[in-house]
């Protein structure tokens, strides 16, 4: 156990975590030349296409240190984007140390801070790594200064590297040996292993990834899950290389996977503790804090027959992404689906993509929204993530919306622009902290709904890419919020309802019906589109009825051609969603998502 080092790599997005992992894997000869490629741990197609890490990836390495000893390294590469923060916090619990990577050109950014704080919460040994020193724009001296100031690290502790060019990698490996403490579990105590990730394998069932804290795990023994009482005989244990590698056992301090034919997915729950049935531990490990989804949207199968597939896909995806939540929802316009909770819009987008790619379920999503708190006149409080469920106006005393504390890291010359942006978004100024003479940290209180949508892009634009931000839920506050409904021939389209600030409701409503007018094809009869705020109609568009839809040319005896044309037309119609008698194409629902 003294030769084991468990650590993760954390950083702000794009600061080079996965590239650094490449170099470590190379230097330890973990991967053959042919297996190697840039950001090799980003193995999902989506990660490669977008050039970002979405999932934390664990991998085992063997390192022959300068002192002549062989060490077992368990590395976890983590994502940098805020939306995948839960991946980071889960990984930390499996480690004793963290490489905190900072881009030498960009310096300390918002997620550098938040990830550092997370790591400190877990009492991890922190190794600051200044990356990208090869860049012409690298500000090695200045950024080292920031690290000393902001992270309270000693100058001598900072390792300067170029992950891209492979500079300074040996020093990183040695630092891991020397500064990350070995795991401190008890190999002879009853088994305790923390499930920090899981995934579903079609042939072998749910496969938990665990960090063994005490005791050991091997094939043939019977294990028990603390939270769910699931009991299984262990078929196989092993460690994570690029592929899985079967081993005889997983010992205290080690990281690896368990195959036990787990068919009930709930039994491989992330955060649960695995123990042995013969000699159970008396208490579980602390596990994880419950994730709080930030954004909600309902997902419906494009093809109603796909409901069960969608359900199964969500269940399996949740196993692999514990930050996803879902519950059944019924819409009169879109049928049966699920209201899902996500950590952010990127997370939502990724989940949708994964559902389509990995599970082949085509879906339609509603406009995302936050979770509101409705204070009723009868004293009750209702939490609500589906706008169309908003109770009758008369019964509502007030609606409250979630607020977040936002910290923006920004060069001093862009402070004005960022403040303007925050004010525009109904923000309350908090404080302004000078980090050094060039950079400030700006603290604002903002409605979560205002930062979810295009705040990310806007803050980058107004700061020419230099600002970064991070946020935490800070509580609920009353807002002048109204429900906006869209009616099609007087039938409300529940999937298009939104809760929105009064000042913005009118514009949003008008634009929405204009857009729908473009996208809904003319029908056999007139279609009236209306936008209504709290039941009062504020805008109206009319789609004139189709005057003519006939190609009655006599095709001689060619009956089949005409029949096929009509049948194709009908197939097209089947793909539309019906609201009353009106056929609404799927694109209309999708286009709403693209409005800003």
């Amino acid at each position, binding site marked *: 156990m003294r030769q084991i080092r468990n650590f993760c790599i954390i950083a702000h997005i794009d600061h080079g975590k996965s590239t650094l992992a490449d170099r470590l894997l190379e230097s330890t000869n973990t991967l053959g030349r042919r297996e190697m490629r840039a950001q090799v741990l980003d193995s999902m197609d989506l990660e490669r296409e977008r050039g970002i890490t979405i999932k934390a990836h664990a991998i085992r390495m063997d390192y022959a240190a300068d002192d002549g000893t062989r060490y077992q390294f368990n590395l976890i590469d983590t994502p940098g984007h805020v939306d995948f923060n839960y991946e980071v916090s889960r990984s930390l619990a499996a480690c004793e140390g963290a490489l905190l990577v900072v881009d030498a050109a960009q310096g300390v950014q918002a997620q550098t801070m938040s990830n550092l704080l997370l790591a400190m919460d877990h009492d991890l040994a922190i190794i600051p790594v200044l990356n990208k020193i090869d860049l012409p724009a690298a500000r090695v001296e200045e950024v080292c200064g920031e690290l000393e100031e902001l992270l309270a690290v000693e100058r001598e502790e900072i390792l300067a590297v170029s992950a891209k060019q492979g500079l300074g990698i040996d020093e990183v490996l040695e630092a891991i040996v020397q500064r990350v403490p070995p795991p401190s579990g008890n190999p002879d105590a009853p088994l305790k292993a923390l499930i920090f990730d899981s995934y579903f394998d079609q042939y072998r069932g749910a496969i938990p990834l665990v960090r063994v804290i005490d005791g050991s795990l091997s094939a043939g023994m019977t294990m028990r899950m603390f939270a769910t009482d699931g009991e299984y005989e262990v078929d196989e244990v092993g460690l994570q290389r690029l592929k899985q590698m079967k081993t005889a056992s997983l010992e205290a301090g080690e990281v690896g996977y368990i195959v036990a034919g787990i068919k009930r997915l709930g039994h491989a729950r992330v955060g649960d503790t695995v123990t042995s049935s013969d000699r159970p531990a008396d208490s579980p490990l602390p596990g994880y804090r419950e994730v709080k989804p930030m954004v909600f949207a309902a997902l419906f199968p494009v093809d109603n027959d796909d409901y069960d597939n969608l359900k199964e896909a969500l269940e399996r995806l949740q196993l692999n992404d514990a930050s996803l939540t879902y519950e059944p929802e019924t819409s009169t316009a879109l049928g049966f689906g699920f209201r899902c909770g996500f950590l952010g819009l990127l997370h939502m987008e990724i989940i949708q993509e994964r559902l389509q790619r990995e599970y082949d379920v085509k879906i339609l999503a509603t406009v995302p929204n936050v979770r509101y708190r409705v204070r009723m006149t009868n004293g009750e409080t209702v939490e609500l993530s589906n706008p169309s469920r908003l109770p009758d106006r008369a019964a509502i005393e007030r609606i409250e919306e979630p607020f977040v504390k936002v910290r923006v890291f920004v060069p001093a010359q862009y402070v004005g622009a960022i403040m303007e942006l925050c004010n525009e978004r109904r923000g309350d100024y908090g404080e302004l902290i000078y980090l050094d003479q060039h950079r400030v940290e700006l603290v604002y209180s903002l409605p979560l709904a205002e930062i979810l949508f295009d705040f990310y892009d806007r803050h980058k634009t107004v700061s020419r890419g230099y600002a970064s931000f991070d946020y935490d839920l800070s509580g609920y506050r009353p807002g002048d919020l109204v429900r906006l409904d869209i009616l099609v021939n007087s039938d409300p389209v529940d999937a298009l309802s939104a809760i929105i600030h009064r000042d913005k409701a009118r514009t949003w409503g008008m634009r929405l019906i204009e857009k729908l007018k473009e996208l809904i094809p003319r*029908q*056999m*009869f007139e279609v009236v589109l209306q936008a209504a705020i709290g039941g009062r109609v504020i805008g109206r568009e009319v789609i004139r009825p*189709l*005057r*003519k*839809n*006939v*190609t*009655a*040319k*006599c095709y*001689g*005896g*060619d*009956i*089949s051609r*005409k*029949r096929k*044309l*009509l*049948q194709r*037309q*009908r*197939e097209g*119609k089947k793909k539309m969603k019906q609201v009353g*008698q009106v056929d609404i194409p799927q694109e209309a629902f999708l286009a709403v998502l693209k409005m800003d």
Partner: protein
Amino acid sequence: MNVCDGDSNGKKNGKKFGVYFHVPFCRASRCAYCDFYSIAAGRSAVGSWLEAVAAECEQARQGRFGGSWTVSSIFFGGGTPSLLAPRDIAGLLEVVGRCWNIAGEAEITVECNPEDVDGRWAGGCRKAGVNRLSVGVQSFDRHYLAAIGRRHRPGKAARAITVARKAGFAKVSADLILGGPGSSEPLVLGSVERALELGVEHLSAYGYHLDPPASGYGRAGFGPVDDDAWSGQYLAVCALLRKRGWRHYEISNWANGDDAQCRHNLTYWERRPYLGLGPSAHSYGPGETRTANAADLERWLAAARSGDFSAVRTRETLDGDTVACEQVMLGLRLEDGVPLRLLERLHGAETAQKLDLLAGRSLLALRSERVCLTDGGFLLYDSIAGRLLPAG
């Protein structure tokens, strides 16, 4: 008394069928809106076509239409069938007559271009046994004719009709085109009136429509008028002919009296058997089979030389659902519509709701247990048929 069900009709009246000849030739250049199969070859290939089409006819006699069938109608369509000399037509009618019994009252139609119709040609056709001419008038307006790319002068069309009458044709039909570039309601009504003056007793008014195969597709100046103008023209024609007491017996066909209806075309819509001969011709034969010849003269001629048409023919056997589909889609084109019973069988409990919605908007009416489209309904034929087809 249109009966939609081919089979029962067949049994009642013995085995009758229609014969269609596809004459795939046109004059020097093709019309810009046309997507019928034809080649601008004039008469050069007529000789080999005549031989091949006779061979195809005789094969059908040996095969699908073997046994005791009676020919109830013959139709020469195209292309430009008036490129054929009367003796060519006579020859083919003889071939048909050798193969089957031609009913005494059989309707025998030739489609013709106004330019081709002179006294000799019309007289010759009449002598050969043709008893109906369908004249491709398109319009009596010179500018409109030019805009849709027809070469003939309007005077020619009027003359063609008069000549046909003189030659002894009791049945003359005029084809008109609605909604083409530059058309208007007065202009179209003018042509209808002119045709009536000339004494035709059958009119077809087809909507100008460009599909990708047509050479005018997507070209500036060739597009139809907008949907509102189009519908206006159609409804005006419907109203005028109704006032004159004509029957609007099919979506784009009108007849002055029951006898004047085109029996051959009704064969298609009422799902009675027909034999199509020539490239791109379609047949509907016993056992619910539909076959189609490839739209390719060269390949079809080669097939004829080899004596095996199967290489240029595709075949489809219709299952019950497809039959129902056809019954609905074809029936809705007709004045008499489709039996309510059929729709109820297809849509069960939802039938009433579906029909009420359409009836409420005056798109269809229920007449003696049959569901029939109104004029407004015909304008939305594709949408309505789409709704009433059996769910697939």
